[in-house]
């Protein structure tokens, strides 16, 4: 239908506009920071070099230019696929991202699927058995998880499972002296277990509560009541009506809340010393590594935007389906 493609087009246009604005905002904020970039580059040793050296360095780092000029320079680099140079890792930003992003994507992807599956199942059960003890327990649990500071939960997991019970490794993505891909699959899963569990549990609450509401709605609808009145079993009703009407909204919601998962990965990766992009981002922020932080911001904005775009398209498709049916 033309109206739907028009709606998707205008939503897409708005998303692109927002993406450009986000990049501008992030660049302005970073160039506004009162931290002296020269000092940050020299690791706090700004008095160790002479004035002419300082001027030369400022020129090399293009600090003598205005914010607008630097932004133009950065944008023209971006157009050529050059994201700048990371002073923290002493590598081009693109290669830092290339080494750290896959690990983050794996962590986020697993938690995304985990919180979708677990959250949907809990929400489904709570909705079907509304007002039972199970429903109340699930609701209390999700309320607890909304309030839970994720870094504290991660610390508790380490204290309990890694230190007290010695079931899981204390840190990192691989045994000492190995890279992530060198280890066996079992060892990979072993190292991923706690970070993924933390992220999954912390980001599960919205999907549980949303699914519960939706399931209760569907169960109270006329067609389900009709179907039940004709003697269809609850199992059949759930399979034919409830899941069909509640799974897609849950997936849409999960795409739309992608940003929170990404934010959570910053914390989980830092606490577990997991060498992903989130931990690099925190390090870059603490070391005022502007180029790296900017590159990471761009990547995270892109990921959030693709999540939002998919959510928009899916929900439009969903509305269209419902309209045609």
């Amino acid at each position, binding site marked *: 239908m033309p109206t739907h493609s028009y709606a998707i087009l205008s939503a897409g246009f708005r998303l692109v506009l927002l993406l450009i*604005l*986000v990049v501008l905002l992030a660049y302005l904020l970073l160039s506004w920071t009162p931290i002296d970039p020269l000092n940050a580059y020299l690791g706090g040793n700004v008095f160790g070099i002479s004035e002419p050296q300082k001027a030369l360095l400022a020129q090399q780092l293009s600090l003598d230019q205005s914010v607008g000029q630097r932004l133009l320079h950065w944008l023209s680099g971006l157009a050529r696929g050059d994201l700048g140079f990371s002073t923290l890792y002493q590598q081009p930003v693109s290669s830092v991202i290339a080494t750290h992003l896959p690990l983050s994507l794996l962590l986020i992807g697993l938690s995304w699927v985990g919180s979708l599956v677990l959250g949907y199942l809990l929400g489904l059960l709570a909705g079907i058995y509304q007002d039972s003890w199970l429903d109340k327990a699930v609701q209390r649990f999700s309320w607890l998880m909304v309030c*839970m500071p994720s870094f504290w939960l991660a610390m*508790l997991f*380490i204290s309990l499972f890694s230190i007290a019970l010695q079931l899981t490794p204390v840190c990192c993505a691989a045994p000492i002296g190995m890279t992530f891909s060198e280890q066996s699959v079992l060892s990979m899963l072993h190292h991923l277990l706690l970070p993924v569990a933390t992220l999954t549990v912390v980001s599960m609450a919205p999907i549980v509560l949303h699914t519960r509401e939706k399931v209760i709605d569907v169960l109270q609808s006329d067609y389900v009541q009709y179907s039940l009145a004709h003697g269809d079993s609850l199992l059949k009703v759930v399979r034919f009506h409830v899941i069909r009407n509640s799974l897609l909204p849950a997936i849409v919601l999960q795409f739309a809340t992608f940003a929170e998962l990404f934010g959570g990965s910053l914390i989980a990766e830092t606490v577990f010393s997991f060498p992903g992009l989130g931990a690099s981002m925190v390090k870059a922020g603490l070391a005022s590594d502007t180029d790296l932080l900017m590159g990471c*911001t761009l990547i995270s904005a892109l990921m*959030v935007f693709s999540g939002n775009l998919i959510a928009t398209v899916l929900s439009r498709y969903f509305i269209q389906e419902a309209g045609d049916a």
Partner: protein
Amino acid sequence: MRDLLRQPSFMAALALLCGLVGLALLWPWQGAELDLLNKYQAPSLHHLFGTDWLGRDLFSRSQQALAQSLYVGGLAVLLSSVLSLMMAMLAMLHRAAAWMVDLLVDLFMSLPHLLLLILLSLAFGGAEFGLVVAVALSHWPKLTRLLRFEMKQVQSAPYYQLAKQFGTSPWQRLRRHMLPHILPQWWIGGLLLFPHALTHMAALTFLGFGLNPDSPSMGALLAQASQYALTGHWWFALCPGLLLLSCLLLLSYVAQRLLLGLRQGPQTHLEGVVKC
């Protein structure tokens, strides 16, 4: 609202919350005295939360930290709610203004929240000032969106349209018809922001972008505790964290019940009467 005050669970939560906050604000000891003979003491009756690596009483330090977090968080939430109300009212003025406000809301919500907080706190130079500004500038969009939604509903309600057709001035319409409906939503919305702001502040300080790690705040206390989690000193993290968590849970519970009470309050009846 009055029904709410008769519910024992709500009153118990409110009393507990007041007790926790009062204790934190009025607790007389700083917890700064070193006692090297009594370091690494597990929780006992004498030291409820145990002692840290310098023998300082963790209970006193936690109370100090909670008071500090509540103060800074309260300031940030206050600023943030005022900002969101102003933005929502600005959006009422003109269609262009509404478009701008909606765009700004979307813009601020399209970065991961924690990343936005990091960028803002870097831009404003970290420390207490940077933290307050960062939290204030990153938490307004959600409340603004809610207020915009409510305001649009009021604007399309018959009584508001009638008031407009009777020729009342915009200021009078705002004061007599809009604000009485919006203000309760606004302050409960602000209250709902409070636990979020506290969590985000603690997380930011934990990562090293917020408050000075030497001054006792919840984030700093837990950041220091994370170094000791590996050596088996579980109470460093567990006890202050539990205090923070119970405070957050109580706050969100009270705010949610207030919101529920408001939704079932006289406003909805009024709406029904007007519609008939």
